[in-house]
């Protein structure tokens, strides 16, 4: 099938040339000594001027981590990680914490501008408040005052530890406890920064909140921690983006995201993950081991995870929902692309505990080149979750004959009145679809982009407008390498 062969070539031609975010910012940095031990944990805690309880929390996590084993059940292969061969803290050197954007190193602001992150508040057409995390530290958060008027707290987690210790102490680790899994435990010991959000009772956040993560320094792991608490009746939409320079070495990113929802609260959490995926031969790229979980504690609370995963050499990620409150709702919409030698093992867990809880899972996996894409999901329904409902749809699209798509759904239903549905499809881009598009004047690349975007539409439409446009372009770039 020559047309398909050509698509394959097009797709395989996608190499580092297509990764536009691969530049490096030249800026003076401060590092912790390489390696990991209790002193490093103390170093990080001291750098952040943390209270004693948090240092103890970290040390406890570190000691627990030493007793744990790296999980190997995911369908991903990578050489053994040497945890001593990395820096666990890297931060741009600054004298004091910047009070306004004017005090932030212009080189850093230029980096974010180059990445297309609008930094200057007055330059924004629409209000999106941004927290910028550069390697291990948050460098700036915009629109803080405006949000403060509504009683909303949006700041780096380091700042939250200083300014709102009671909230952090109450909720940190309450959704993902340090011992939850190997990577979450490591994160608990060495997390460096991330975002903190608190939306008070009944407040509808007037703008999108966004965190932009950037790994810049060499041989550095990024361990960020995000905590969002939505109090009763509140509403927030949160966006997350990430990129990294192109390097031959593999870099590790192990994040933890915890969401807490009270009665009638809504959180919409959207991610466009674009960490460096490695080159066409599979050299370099980010290892992305992420634990994301939402606890719908309140009745009628609703959480919606939307993710577009185009980057990383390895993705290990299962944004989950604990549906504890009666009538709470969990949603998971995912697009994962693996091209070249990328491997993704991603999915979700929906744990129904409350009565009449509902969950929806829509997963779209696209494999090209030698990419391996696995959907792994668990729908668990407790005996008390009467009237619980789940709908799962997993679609896989294959481009070429050297890639793989795998679907591993687990269903544990202990409640007779629950209703669980699962649909799955696997398809190829058909040659007649390509020919149809090309006979209308579209190039091979445009045709693939259009068909893939069509395939992902149900997920992309869940993204906020600005992100949807970015995501569409990203899908095309991830698959084509050259089209901008």
């Amino acid at each position: 099938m020559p047309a398909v062969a050509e698509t394959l070539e097009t797709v395989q031609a996608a190499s580092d040339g297509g990764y536009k975010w691969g530049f490096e910012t030249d800026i003076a940095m401060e590092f912790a000594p390489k390696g990991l031990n209790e002193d490093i944990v103390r170093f990080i805690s001291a750098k952040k001027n943390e209270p004693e309880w948090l240092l103890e929390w970290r040390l406890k996590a570190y000691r627990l981590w030493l007793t744990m084993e790296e999980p190997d059940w995911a369908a991903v292969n990578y050489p053994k990680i040497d945890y001593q061969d990395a820096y666990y803290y890297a931060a741009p050197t600054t004298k004091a914490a910047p009070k306004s954007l004017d005090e932030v190193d212009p080189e850093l602001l230029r980096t974010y501008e180059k990445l297309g992150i609008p930094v200057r508040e007055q330059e924004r057409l629409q209000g999106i408040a941004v927290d910028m995390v550069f390697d291990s530290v948050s460098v700036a958060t915009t629109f803080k005052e405006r949000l403060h008027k509504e009683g909303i707290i949006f700041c780096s987690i380091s700042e939250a530890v200083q300014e709102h210790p009671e909230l952090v102490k109450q909720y940190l680790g309450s959704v993902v406890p340090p011992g939850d899994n190997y990577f979450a435990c490591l994160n608990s010991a060495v997390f460096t920064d991330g975002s903190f959000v608190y939306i008070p009772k009944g407040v509808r956040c007037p703008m999108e909140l966004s965190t932009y993560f950037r790994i810049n320094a060499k041989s550095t792991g990024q361990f960020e921690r995000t905590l969002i608490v939505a109090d009763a009746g509140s509403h927030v939409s949160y966006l997350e983006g990430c990129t990294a320079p192109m390097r031959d070495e593999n870099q590790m990113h192990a994040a933890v995201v915890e969401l807490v929802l009270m009665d009638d609260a809504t959180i919409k959490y959207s991610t466009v993950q674009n960490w460096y995926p490695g080159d066409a031969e599979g050299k370099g790229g980010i290892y992305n081991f992420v634990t994301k979980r939402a606890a719908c504690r309140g009745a009628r609370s609703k959480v919606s995870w939307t993710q577009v995963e185009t980057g990383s050499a390895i993705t290990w990620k299962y944004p989950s929902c604990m549906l504890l409150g009666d009538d709470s709702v969990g949603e998971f919409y995912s697009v994962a692309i693996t091209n070249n030698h990328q491997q993704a093992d991603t999915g979700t867990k929906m744990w129904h505990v409350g009565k009449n809880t509902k969950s929806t899972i829509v997963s779209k996996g696209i494999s090209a080149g030698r990419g391996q894409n696995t959907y792994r999901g668990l729908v668990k329904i407790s005996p008390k979750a009467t009237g619980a409902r789940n709908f799962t749809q997993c679609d896989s699209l294959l481009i070429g004959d050297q890639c793989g798509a795998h679907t591993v759904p687990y269903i544990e239903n202990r409640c007779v009145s629950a209703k669980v549905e699962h649909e799955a499809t696997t398809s190829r881009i058909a040659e007649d679809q390509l020919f149809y598009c090309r006979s209308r004047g579209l190039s091979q690349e445009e045709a693939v982009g259009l068909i893939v975007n069509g395939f992902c539409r149900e997920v992309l439409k869940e993204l906020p407008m600005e992100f949807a446009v970015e995501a569409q372009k990203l899908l095309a770039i991830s698959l084509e390498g050259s089209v901008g």
Partner: protein
Amino acid sequence: MLRIEGLTAEIDGKQILKGINLEVPTGEVHAIMGPNGSGKSTLSYVLSGREGYEITGGSATFNGVDILAMEPEERAAAGLFLAFQYPVELPGVGNANFLRTALNSIRKAKGEPEVDAMAFLKMARAKLKTLQMSDDMLKRNVNVGFSGGEKKRNEVLQMALLEPSLAILDETDSGLDIDALKIVSEGVNAMRGPNFSALVITHYQRLLDYITPDRVHVLMGGRIVKSGGPELALELEAEGYAKVAA
């Protein structure tokens, strides 16, 4: 002017076209009629550049340019349009988006400025009106859930928007009821003019009641066996292919 000389082509080692000679001067509409398996669809696919067909001899030029050497999208940019016998479904791809992308690809290739979404919508609505089609057509996904008639109408809509100089209609009448047939035919007739030519491929004379061809050719066994005026179609309908071609 489309000029085909001694064109031979095969698929999977089986020869389908056995030396086609055909000229369609600019401004004319020609019909190709023939029984099943005579090579009608193969001819349309070979002319529009579908993969899988091996051209073993002869040539096809459009306004003096060798089209057989071009990619399908280059042929589209050169003014060629194929109305598919079985239009393909593109799940999740909106018709308006598809059409605008196609139009802009062709404009880009010609060095013309692209059309923005608003201007496109205006153009598309005007075309829909003349074709007596509903605006709904633009909102739906490309051919997904379309009836047979709607799919063919969508092909005509695409043709009207892309304004090709040579259209190949591959059994556009198949599966159409009489009302749809009229709408489709009117769409084609509206395109007729000194700069538009078309190759209408059909089994039946019925379509030619609505689109009167300048010439009719009979394709049998991979060759044009007979050519004539519009009256040849009536003759075929009355007597059958075997007798007329004998």
